[in-house]
């Protein structure tokens, strides 16, 4: 059986050198090159050019960035950009309770933004509840934690916010996006309430930095860590919420 004569185009030779040739074609091109030494020499020269370019300029990648390049980014009118992206992702539509990320860019995955929104809604609904703010009260704290841990399939903790004046008063099970979610409620001596919402995000959701949202007096700080989504909601301002988030973060990490 005679081999079918193959022809190889110039474009294919470039694609071969650049690793952009379909895998199924590579063997054929290599066989052809073995019989065409001139073309083989040319492709080898192109390869050398690529390698030399990388050897010359790759060190730039490891250099610290000059401040003049990063400074404009932190001063940028980020709100407009985030607002546009947020509108595209349509994660503001439900109730419009949440605004847009004020700081710490990174467009939140829709799922994470939705978690924050659910947490905020749950906060508004239950923190205002006079008779039944919680389902299980602080008197049964260990039962509360075990029960919610079991339902979420994760080991949960109740952070101690007492140094900020907030005491745990109980918690409840809530419907989350893809399964159950937990809400722990705290209260300070003035009756102000703070909630920590915990849910299980989709598989392989990467950890995120803290994000902050605010609307109509409800402030939400949320993040993903260790396969759990967290949202702290309440009246405290951003800086105070961040302090509280530290405590929550540590309760789940140490």
């Amino acid at each position, binding site marked *: 059986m005679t081999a079918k004569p193959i022809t190889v185009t*110039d*474009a294919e030779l*470039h*694609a071969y050198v*650049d690793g*952009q040739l379909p895998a199924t074609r590579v063997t054929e091109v290599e066989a052809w090159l073995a019989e065409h030494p001139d073309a083989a020499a*040319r492709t080898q*020269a*192109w390869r*050398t*050019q*690529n390698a*030399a*370019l*990388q*050897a*010359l*300029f*790759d*060190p*730039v*990648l*490891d*250099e610290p*960035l*000059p401040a*003049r*390049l*990063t400074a*404009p*980014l*932190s001063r*940028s*009118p*980020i709100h*407009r*950009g985030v607002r*546009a*992206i947020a509108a*595209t*992702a349509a994660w503001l539509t439900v109730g419009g309770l949440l605004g847009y990320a004020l*700081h*710490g*860019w*990174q*467009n939140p995955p829709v799922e994470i933004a939705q978690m924050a929104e659910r947490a905020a809604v749950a906060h508004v609904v239950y923190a205002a509840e006079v008779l039944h703010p919680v389902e299980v009260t602080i008197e049964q704290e260990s039962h509360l934690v075990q029960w919610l841990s079991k339902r979420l399939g994760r080991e949960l903790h109740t952070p101690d916010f007492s140094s900020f004046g907030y005491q745990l008063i109980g918690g409840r099970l809530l419907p989350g996006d893809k399964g159950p979610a937990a809400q722990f409620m705290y209260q300070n001596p003035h009756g102000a309430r703070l909630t920590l919402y915990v849910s299980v995000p989709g598989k392989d959701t990467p*950890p*995120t*930095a*803290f*994000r902050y949202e605010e609307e109509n007096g409800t402030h939400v700080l949320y*993040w993903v*860590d260790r396969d759990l989504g967290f949202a702290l909601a309440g009246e405290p301002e951003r800086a105070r919420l*961040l302090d509280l*988030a*530290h405590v929550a*973060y540590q309760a789940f*990490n*140490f």
Partner: protein
Amino acid sequence: MPSAIRLTAGHGCIVKGAMTTHPFEEHIPRLRRYALALLRERTRADDLVQDTLERALRKFTLFRHGSNLRAWLFAIMHNTFVNQVRSGRQQQFVDTEYDDSEPSPDTAEDSTTLRDLLGALERLAPEQREVILLVGLEQLSYEETARVLEVPVGTVMSRLSRARERLRTLMSGDTTPQLRRIK
């Protein structure tokens, strides 16, 4: 462990070392690499990056979420570069500090190759230099390169082919040395 979270001044915060930064920031090193290869002079290369970032910030609302941010930034850099070439700001390629400082090749032969390459790159037409750098250095796909340069893929291929052959000729020493254009 203990300092897993900390605030950075007015900018965002860090969780386990993952800083919340502006989305452009992770692309700056590659923009700088490309700009330096394009212009071969550090100050001017960073000027180009800065102009690009400022333009990108102004146009960010036009960026379609979910599309390729890196290619979008390279496209803006390309347009900025082309405008500068047209206005005469990037006409000349003055000899540089770069060959002295980077890198330290293993052998004299390598060193010669790299110096030859720098000299040869300089003598390519800007549109050829852009293609060979986007493909060979930045390793963009041909389609991405076409989008960045706003030309058909066929044009990318023909420019690439010409650029590579010209470099090969220049580096094999077939041509008599030309005077460097200065100013």
